[in-house]
């Protein structure tokens, strides 16, 4: 287990309790850099160790799918396979096996494990705003293709799809009229 110690970001010296949770900036005892160090109870909490599954003692007792010699404690909420204490991954109230966890993480299907999202609405808006003929068409395509795709977690910007669509159509029509006038005049 890591010792619960903090280092000064400037000189890497170990910081002691005198600088913790002070209302004002406190100097680092080693280099004198002004620091604010706010610690919380988790800082002193020992790291929890994982539990290994119990061995199957009685014949016929349900065992783990991945470790047949270990006792099953929970079925996977996604695939229903029996899991021992080691294989049981509890996430947001769900119990998942490592395989479902990995596939769910890859497909971005598990809420709380999603770590990247494409911003289709902003891309569509940006394309529609660029003053070129093909970008307007691109904006229309993106707005229609990703109309129901999930947007940003923090700023969904659903309105941007409609605006992008309107601007894209407007831009394409304007270019169409422009080209028509140029060709008919010549």
């Amino acid at each position, binding site marked *: 287990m890591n010792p*619960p110690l*903090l280092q000064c970001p400037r000189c890497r010296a170990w910081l002691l309790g005198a600088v913790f*949770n002070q209302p004002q900036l406190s100097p680092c005892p080693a280099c004198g850099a002004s620091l604010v160090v706010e610690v919380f109870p988790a*800082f002193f909490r020992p790291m929890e160790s994982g539990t290994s599954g119990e061995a199957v003692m009685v014949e016929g007792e349900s065992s783990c799918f991945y470790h047949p010699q270990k006792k099953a404690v929970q079925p996977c909420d996604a695939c229903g396979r029996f899991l021992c204490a080691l294989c049981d991954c509890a996430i947001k109230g769900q119990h998942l096996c490592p395989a479902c966890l990995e596939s769910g993480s890859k497909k971005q299907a598990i809420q709380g494990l999603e770590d990247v999202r494409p911003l289709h609405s902003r891309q569509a808006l940006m394309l529609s705003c660029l003053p070129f003929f093909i970008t307007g068409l691109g904006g229309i395509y993106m707005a229609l293709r990703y109309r129901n795709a999930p947007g940003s977690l923090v700023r969904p910007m659903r309105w941007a799809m409609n605006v992008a669509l309107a601007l894209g159509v407007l831009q394409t029509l304007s270019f169409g009229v422009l080209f028509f006038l140029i060709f008919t005049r010549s």
Partner: protein
Amino acid sequence: MAEATPYRRLPGTGYRRMVPGWAILLLFFFAIGIFALLLRGRRVQLWLGADHLLLVESDGRQEFYKRFYYRDIQAVVVHKTSEGKIVNGILTGITCLFLAIAVAVGMEEVAAGIVFVCIAAIFGIALLVNWLSGPTCQTFLRTAVQIEELPSLTRLRQLHKALDQLRPLIVAGQGELPPDEIAARMREVVEGPRQPAPEPIKTIILEEPDAPPRTDPGPAS
């Protein structure tokens, strides 16, 4: 219409830089102008969720998320930096330089003098904004498994505002840590946990080389 999101934004926006700040400034003024801003890197913001702090990095095409659950946050370490003072010094120098040029040129040609005053005013406004934003800092968040830099909290004033919003949520998730308990727990960490008193050493008396060893019961108390 405002869309419902379970997150609330914390003050501050920063950039996880691809190239150093001085290189961007150099490119901005002497090479590629406004396009240098494309090299700023990912924009970073912090958002408060129901049970976690969400760090959002955006490159314009995608958003990248990192979650720090309130129950897991161990510490926030902030280091006051001198970046703000250095930038203030540089901007003051540039403003003064352009003002001096404006005065020198303006004596002979008023229009040129006005142009240089305008350039000086741009740098003066930047100086004012930087000065009003207050001292700069570098912020780190520590959990049991990582130390993450928070590039969005680079001003002490923003940091205090953000901590005032963040602290109650962490306390709700972990409980309060009284100041006297910190000292006691740190003493325990530095000195190690208290060990039980060692047993008194028993002396072994050998009377005959072939006899089994006899232990001395120790002084009678």
